[in-house]
C-alpha cells in the first residue's frame, strides 16, 4: 500500500462502544484517534495534521453535543471544515438528522440499525470515492 493509513477521529462517550469501534476500524486499516468530549475532539482537530474522517456520536460527555462540535468545526477557517463527518447515533429524530445534514455532515447512521462492519465499509467507500474526486 503506497497510501498512508486513513486517520479517523472517533467521538463517542460510551467507552465499551468506543473500544469496539476503535478495534473494528483498526482491523479495517484505519488510524484511530478517540475523543469523548467536543473539547477533546476539537483539540485533536487542531493538533493533527490530517484527519480523513470523523465518526461522531450525538450524545457526548459534558455539556456539548455532537451538534455543537459540528457547528464549531464548520466555523473554522482552516481546512478542517472540509473533513467528512459521519454521525453515528442512536437517536433518529428527523429534526436532528436534518440539522446535522444542514450543517454539512456527510451521512447519518442509526447505530442499532447497522452492523459495525457495514458502517465502516461505507465510510471507506465514501473516502475512497471522495479522494478520487479530489
Amino acid at each position: 500500500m503506497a497510501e498512508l493509513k486513513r486517520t479517523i477521529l472517533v467521538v463517542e462517550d460510551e467507552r465499551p462502544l468506543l473500544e469496539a469501534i476503535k478495534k473494528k476500524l483498526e482491523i479495517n486499516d484505519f488510524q484511530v484517534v478517540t475523543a469523548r468530549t467536543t473539547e477533546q475532539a476539537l483539540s485533536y482537530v487542531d493538533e493533527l495534521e490530517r484527519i480523513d474522517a470523523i465518526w461522531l456520536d450525538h450524545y457526548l460527555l459534558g455539556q456539548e453535543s455532537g451538534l455543537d462540535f459540528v457547528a464549531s468545526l464548520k466555523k473554522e477557517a482552516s481546512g478542517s471544515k472540509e473533513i467528512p463527518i459521519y454521525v453515528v447515533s442512536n437517536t433518529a429524530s428527523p429534526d436532528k438528522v436534518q440539522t446535522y445534514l444542514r450543517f454539512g455532515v456527510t451521512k447519518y447512521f442509526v447505530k442499532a440499525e447497522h452492523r459495525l462492519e457495514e458502517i465502516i465499509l461505507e465510510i471507506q467507500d465514501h473516502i475512497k470515492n471522495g479522494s478520487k474526486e479530489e
Partner: protein
Amino acid sequence: MKIRHKILIPFTLSIIAFGVFAALFVSWHVQDKTREIIQENMFLLAQEKLRDIDRVVVARIEQAEVYVSDIALEETFKESNDTFEKMEDREAYIEEIDTEWRQGVSPLTAQITENELSEEIRTEFQLNAFYEKRYGHPIFPEVFVTNKFGVNVAQTNATSDYYQADEAWWQETKENGLYISEIRSDESAEANVIDIAVRIEDEEGNFSGVLLVAYDIREVVRAVETLVARNTTGLLDVQTVTKATLLNAGGSVIHSTRRDFNLFDRYEDNVHKEIQGHDAGGMYQPLLETKTDSFSDDLLIHAHSKGVRHFEGLGWILITAYSEEEAFSVASFLRNIIFLTVLIVAILAFIVSRRIAHSIADPIEELTVQSKRLAEGDFTTQIGQSAERGSKDDEIKALFHAFETMRCKLKEMYESLDEKVRERTRSLAEANARNKAMLTSIGDGLIFISMNRQIVFTNGAAENMLGVTQRDMIGSVWTDIVTAVTGKGEVVPPEDMPMEQVLNAEGGVVVSTNTADDFYFTRTDRSTFPVIITASQVVVEGEKAGVIVVFRDITKDKQIDEAKTEFVSLASHQLRTPLSTINWYIEMLLDGDAGPLKKEQTEFLEQVYTSNQRMVGLVEALLNVSRLELGTFAVNPEETDIPALFRSIFDEVKPVVDQKCLDFVDDVQRNIPNTKVDPDLTRMIFENLITNAVKYTPEKGQVRVSAYIATAGEQVDEKEIREDSLVVEVADTGYGIPDNQKDQIFNKLFRADNVQQKDTTGTGLGLYISKLIVDHVGGKIWFNSQENEGTSFFVTLPLSGMRKKKGSKTLGE
C-alpha cells in the same frame, strides 16, 4: 272640564240665560204693550184737551156774536152810522180825527171811551170784578166797536187809532163775518191776546159795523198747563205727560210748558205742516226733539183740533210729550222684578247644582286618590268618609263598596305575590351564588361568547390566565382579548380557532383541541402559554345563542409530555446503547476480530446475537408504542410511491418467505397513483401485517398482498367505502385467530394462545401499533379469520391523504 264644573256651570248658566231672556222678553213685551196703551191714552188726552181749548175759545166767540145784535140796536151806534152816512168830506174828517187820535190829542178819544155804549160794553164783557175773582185776570182786556165806515164808536180803553177800515182784519170781518187773529201781545192790556172781530148787521142784514174783543188767552195757557199736572191714567200714579206745547195753525208757539219755547217761537222744522197733513191728528211718533232739555228722549203725541160745532176750529196743534222712562216704569219695574227673581233663582240653582256636583265629584276624586295610592302599592288606606255622605243605596256607595272589595283582594294578592317573589329570589340568589362559586372555583378559564362575537361573561380563572379583568373582557369582541399564536409565534387567524368554527357551524357542535395541537394564548405582557380549548355551541330555544369556551393552561401538561417524550427519547437512547454495544462486540467476535472461533462458540454467539436483535426489535416496538400512546408523533404526508413501498417490504421478508417456501402473491396494483401518505407510518402499518402473515403461516402456505384504489360507495369485504381510499388486503393461509380471542387481537402485548404454542416469536405489539397508526391517520383496519385456515386483514386509508399532524417526535426515533 271637571265634572263638578260640568254640572254646575251649564245648569247655572242656563238658568241665568233663561232668566235673562225671560226678563228681557217680558219687559220688552210689556214695554211694547204699555207704550201702545200710553200712546192711545195720551192721544185721547191731547185730543180732549184741544177740544176743551176749542170749547173755551168758542164760548168766548159766541159771547161776542150774541152781543153783536144788541149793539146793532143801540142808539149811539145807530147815530154814528147815520152821522157818517150824511157827512160830507167824510174822508178828510176821518183823517183829521185819526191824525189827532194818533197823537193822542183828540178829545174824541175820551169821549168815545166814556160814552154810553162803551159803558154797556164794559159791563157786558169786562165784568172785571167777577172775572178777577174767578180767574185772577180779566178775560177781555179790550173791546171796541166801529161803525160801518170803520171808525171807533165805542171802546173800553183808548185804542191806538181811530180809523180801522184800512185794516185787513176789519175788511175780513166785514167780508166773512168773523175774524180771529193770531196771538199778539197787547201792551195796553198787558196780556197775550187774540182778537175776535164780529160783523155787526142791522135788521135787514146790512153791514153796519165791527165788534172787536181782545181775548186774554191765559185761560188757554192754563188748560195746557193742567195737562202736565199730575195725571193718573189709571195704571199707575205717574206723571205721564211731561211737556205740552200748543201751536197755532201757523206753527208758532202759543204756549209751552217747556222753558225753551216761548210765545211766537217757531216750533221746529215746520212740523206743524206735517202734523196738519195727518188726518185728525195722529199718534204718529216719535217726533224726535232736537231741542231737548235735560231729560231723556221723550216721545211726543200730537193732536190738532177738529173743531167744535160749526166752528172749524182754531187749527191749533197740541203736542204732548211723555217720558218713556216714566211711562215704561211699569215695564222696568217688571223687568227688575224678573231680574231679581232670576238672580235669586240663579243663586239657588248655583247652590243646588254645586251640592249635586260635589256629591258626585267628591267621591270620584276620593276614588281617584285611592286608586293612585293603590297603584303605588299602598293597600292599607281605607276609603274616605265622602262615601258615607251619600244616601245609603246610591250608585256612589255601591262603587265605593266595590272599590273597597277590590282593595282588599289586591292587598291579599300582593302580599302573597310578595311572598312568592321573595321565595323565588331567595332560591335564585342561592342558585346564583352556587353558580358563581362553581365558576370561580373551577380551574379552567371560561368565556361565553355571543353570536356577535362579544364576550358576555367569564370567570376568575380566565381573568388570571389572560391577565385581563372580567370587566374589561365583558362587552369586548373576543378577538380583542384573546390572541392565539402557534408555538413558533405565528398568529392563528380567528377563523381557525374552535370558537369561530363553533359559532359558524350548526347543530350544537363541540370542538376541542388537544395537547398535540399548537394553540398558545397571549397574555397582556406578551408572554404566551399553551392551551387546550373546548368550544361548545349554546342553543337556546332552537337558536344559536353563542359559544362557551373552556380553556386550560397546559404548560404543565406540555412540560410533562415534553418530559415524557424526552424521557422516552433518553430511555431509548439508554436502552439502545448497551444493545448496540452488545451487537457490535458480538459482531466482531463472530467476524473473528478477536481470533478464530470454535464451532460451538460461534453457535452460542449466534444465539446471543439473535436474542439481542430481538431485544432491539422489542425496544423499538416499545418506544414506538410509548410515542403512540403519548399521541405525540408526527404525521408527515408526502407523495409516496405505494407500489414501491410494498416492494421494499416484500424484499425485507423475502428471506423468510424463501426459507418457508411460501407462495407469496404480489397483488399490488401498479396503477396506484402517488398518494400523500406518511411513508414511515404507512410502512410500519403494512410491515407489521405482512411480517405477521409470513410469520404465522406454516411452510408451503400462501400469503397474498392486494392493494388497490376504491372509490366512494364501493364495497370492501361487505363494508361500504365512504370516500375514495387505498385498500390493502393481507391474506394468509396461516394459523388464524381463535374466535374467543378475536376481540383482543389488537390489544397491547397480546399474543393469541395458538401462536404462543407454536413457538413463534412476537412482541404482541405489531397489531397494536398498526391499529394505532391507522386510527391516527383516519383509516380503518379490520380482519376476518378462521383458526387453522387463515386470516385476512383489511386496511383502508383515505386518499384525501393523511391529515398532517404536528407531533413532538416521529415514530421510530
